[in-house]
């Protein structure tokens, strides 16, 4: 037992050794990969990465590309709507399930099961359901509503909503579960207090429960947001970006540029823009979550 302060590096060495995979993943894959991507976004790499520097050319081209702009716009629309709807629908469903109802488990399973299915499957099924010649639109017309003309997958103006319907179908169940868990975590006494105060249930949810569920909402937002940048699979399976380029998304742009267009530089530039966006959203959050407070 030395009285000297031992080398800090070797204190709790096991913990550090156990963290090596995490450190490697963080540093080599995510950090390294990000840096590598950014560096090569300043080259005109085509099929293979090469160090031919072209400055900001790729970015200039990126922001002059209609498809990229539409992708961004789509992601914005999809992102905002899917956040709003996921949260609202998830919350409302959770609130309904929270009413001590019968068959709660059944309802919950029904809402959650789509989450078990991949985006590919989701996309395929909804592509089919929304097909104007086969799916719901046809049935509605067959039922007598002749003028029913809802064909989101073939109408550039609303295609993104067609994707949204599928996306929500797949993801809201999980959000609902998170919300439900959050609601159940709220002190029973709060509910009692509000009942004694004569506050109607819906008001209690809106003015008291929602503000108390802040951490849940943050977790939920993170989960939705991390799903957003990956909306690729769904789009590919459901519309392939079409009609035209009406439902393109940034991740697809990146992918297509890198592998179809064989213009890695352009793909990397687009990736970098996505990463920057993510960073802008995420860093303040990470700071608040991990930097600001310490564990007591």
């Amino acid at each position, binding site marked *: 037992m030395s009285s000297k302060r031992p080398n800090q590096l070797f204190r709790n060495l096991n913990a550090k050794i156990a963290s090596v995979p995490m450190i490697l993943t963080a540093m080599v894959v995510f950090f390294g990969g990000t840096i590598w991507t950014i560096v090569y976004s300043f080259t005109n790499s085509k099929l293979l990465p090469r160090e031919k520097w072209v400055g900001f050319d790729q970015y200039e081209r990126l922001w002059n590309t209609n*498809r990229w702009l539409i992708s961004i716009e789509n992601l914005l629309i999809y992102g905002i709507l899917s956040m709003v709807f996921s949260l609202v629908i998830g919350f409302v469903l959770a609130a309904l399930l929270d009413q001590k109802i019968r068959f709660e488990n059944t309802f919950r399973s029904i809402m959650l099961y789509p989450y078990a299915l991949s985006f590919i499957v989701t996309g395929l099924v909804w592509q089919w359901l929304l097909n104007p010649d086969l799916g719901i639109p046809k049935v509605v017309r067959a039922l007598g509503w002749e003028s029913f003309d809802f064909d989101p997958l073939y109408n550039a103006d609303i295609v993104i909503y067609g994707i949204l319907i599928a996306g929500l179908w797949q993801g809201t169940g999980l959000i609902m579960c998170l919300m439900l868990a959050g609601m159940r975590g709220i002190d029973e006494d709060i509910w009692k207090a509000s009942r004694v105060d004569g506050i109607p249930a819906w008001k209690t949810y809106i003015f008291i429960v929602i503000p108390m569920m802040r951490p849940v909402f943050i977790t939920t937002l993170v989960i939705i947001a991390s799903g957003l940048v990956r909306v690729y699979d769904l789009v590919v399976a459901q519309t*392939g970006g079409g009609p035209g380029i*009406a439902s393109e998304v940034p991740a697809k742009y990146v992918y297509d540029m890198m*592998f179809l267009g*064989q213009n890695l530089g352009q793909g990397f530039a687009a990736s970098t823009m996505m990463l920057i966006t993510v960073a802008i959203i995420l860093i303040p959050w990470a700071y608040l979550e991990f930097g600001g407070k310490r564990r007591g």
Partner: protein
Amino acid sequence: TDLEVTHWWTSGGEAAAVAELAKAFDATGNKWVDGAIAGGGSTARPIMISRITGGDPMAATQFNHGLQAQELVEAGLMRDLTGVAEKENWKDVVAAPSLLESCTLDGKIYCVPVNIHSWQWLWLSNKAFEDVGVAVPTNWEEFVAAAPKLREAGKVPLALGGQAWQRRGLFDVLLISLGGKELYNKIYQDKDAEAARSEDTAKIFKAAADAREMSEGSNVQDWNQATNMVITDKAGGQVMGDWAQGEFQVAGEVAGEDYTCLPGLGDNALLTTNGDAFYFPVLNDEEKSAAQEELASVMFDAKTQVAFNLKKGSLPIRKDVDLNAANDCMKKGLAILEKGDVIASADQLVTPDTATQIEGMFTEFFSDMSITPEDAQERFAELIENAD
């Protein structure tokens, strides 16, 4: 020796054609391990490229001709097939020298072209026109004129799939067939933006706008689904390459009776030659390397070529083959080929990057009625201007 061959030939006709290749290869005592990836080149190519650059290459892989694989070749990842080619005298027997040309880099041959494809075909459903009481058109203009009748009868005049390459393809066909060889070359070969902005090109865009209107309501993604609309007489016609013929065959339809094919849209019988080629990544395994050369040789073999191309609906890459079994349409194509009315396809002229951009632009154009032909033309011209 087992060789893994990746490709994206998964439609009915295509699969049957691949089977011929496999059969021929298996007959040499080796084994063809099929690595089909469905969803077309756009799905398959990234996977192929990743595997090759990732150091886990397949033994052979399909690529389109042209610039797609050039960098892989330059990086020394592809096997040099010059030895086989010279031994078997490919240069002399090849039907479309330009295709072998595009397999060549610095005088060395790196791929095996296996067929000749041409894009400039209009496929028409005889029955569809019969239904509406119009004669089967003999050229594009008649087809356009017949469109309203088809519409009235609840048919889609022109079937057009949603994938980007089909849409650009349609435009390129219109460009060649209606605009002629010169205009085409100016634009794609010389990257002449002026030509792209010219009156002549404007006409093409007008025609494209017509096509756009005619294709409304197609609502399919894959090209063969569009073809299927023609086969089932739901659509009047489709502009598609000769590979569409494979689908008609699988469906048991007979050229001339059930359907009509118009090369060059019936206007300008010019064909681009395009084709599929197989590349052979460099492998460390001696045995496999030897088998690779065997496979290359099998693919180019005259017998295999006939069997393969009959199924595929394309033209063989060799001139020294007997094509008695070929049908009507194929013969029409051969005739044009023999006359030498062939030009290089756009894929050989522009980089994939530019091609993707042009595809993007046309996908947009064909699905968005609000884009005027003039706007589209201007954007097209800009892309041509900036092409490298």
